[in-house]
């Protein structure tokens, strides 16, 4: 089974209580979690990635346990080997496109050098059409290009699954349509499960093998 997720968390803030309960399992290679903002999609994705805490539950991807509160297991985000594309891409502003993409390839306390050459780096820069932009900084490139950098950065380390948080929300709609097709083409060439969260029905139509609807902290 690819996805096996069952997580719970209660948020309490300023007297308001929000209960998140996300349970799904299945073999869809492209899973889309669809729902209005505030439904708890983002938190669910963050919990899966190990970026947010769950009160209880388990996350198992392709048979690999990432967390299981019953057994006291909770891998930190850095050990989960997941590709994650943030909503506004979270590119490192102090690093070039090349350094951003290579970020996960360099271990240790120092950022990858500006001239780093690495076969995987070259491959992903080429695949996503970023070779010409490699020496630019994130603020010097367009929104669509930034999204490709974020994708390349997430994929270069050969992750176990790709998680995307509203990856098209920051783009205008013609570009959105084009990039959906690009992402779909990319994923079909890779043997990589994807979980995408969005509030946009069109994202789900274009990309999903299976759609899960979420509202007020629950899957419907």
């Amino acid at each position, binding site marked *: 089974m690819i996805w096996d997720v069952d997580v719970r968390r209660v948020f309490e803030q300023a007297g308001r209580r929000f209960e998140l309960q996300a349970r799904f399992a299945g073999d869809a290679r492209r899973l889309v979690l669809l729902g209005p903002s505030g439904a708890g999609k983002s938190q669910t994705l963050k919990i899966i*990635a*190990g*970026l947010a805490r769950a009160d209880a539950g388990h996350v198992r991807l392709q048979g690999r346990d990432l967390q299981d509160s019953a057994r006291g297991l909770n891998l*930190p*985000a*850095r*050990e*989960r*080997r*997941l*590709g*994650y594309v*943030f909503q*506004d891409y*979270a590119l*490192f*502003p*102090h690093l070039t496109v090349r350094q951003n993409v290579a*970020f*996960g390839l360099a*271990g*240790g*306390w*120092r*950022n990858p050098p500006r001239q780093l050459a690495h076969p995987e780096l070259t491959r992903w820069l080429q695949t996503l059409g970023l070779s010409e932009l490699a020496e630019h*900084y994130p*603020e010097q490139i367009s929104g669509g290009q930034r999204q490709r950098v974020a994708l390349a*950065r997430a994929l270069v*380390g050969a992750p176990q699954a790709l998680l995307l948080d509203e990856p098209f929300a920051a783009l205008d709609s013609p570009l959105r349509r084009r990039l959906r097709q690009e992402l779909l083409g990319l994923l079909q060439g890779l043997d990589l499960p994807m979980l995408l969260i969005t509030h946009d029905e069109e994202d789900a139509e274009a990309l999903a093998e299976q759609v899960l609807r979420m509202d007020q902290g629950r899957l419907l």
Partner: protein
Amino acid sequence: MQEAWVPLLLTLKVAGWATALNLLLGVGVGFALARLRFPGRELLDALLTLPMVMPPTVLGYYLLVLIGRKGPLGAWLQAEFGITLIFTWQGAVIAATIVAFPLVFKSARAAFEGVDPQLEQAARVLGLSELAVFFRVTLPLAWRGILAGLLLAFARATGEFGATLMVAGSIPGKTQTLSVAVYEAVQAGQDATANVLVLVTSITCIVVLLSAGRLAPGRVAGGGLAR
């Protein structure tokens, strides 16, 4: 020029050490205050800011009480290690460090708070340990703000007078820094000496402030802090 040379070098030595110590202390405390949630955090911030608003002579007096020959820390250092801090250049370093400390930790805190936590999360997902996240993302993005604070601290330490005089005194060639030397020269009616000293001090401070201004966040395109 001879009369300005010795105190200038001593001043730069004292201010340099005070700045180096504040690099460690100020960045550490600034980071802790920016990132750790604990009760009394703002109270601690206010207490640590006191050296900026209290009269330097009051600070000097506190220091005398603490590290003086009869003070608890001073007596212990003397008994255990034979170290005396009072009336030494090291004493002047301690006074300058404390006076300049708020400038560094406040800048560092603001700079760390200006770093988007999502960038640190992105680095974690990409496999980095917490220390690697700090050195590869947080510190580079906060660095300009911290550096601006350090330069202000250096300027403040260069001009430090009250606490230094109380703790280190005014021993020519040993603890007499520029600002203390100016005071002594004026008291002794040596106007020519005072003029040279004042000029040298002013130029030093202007150079430091110009450097700090160039590094201030918002003025630098491509700086990490503005975002």
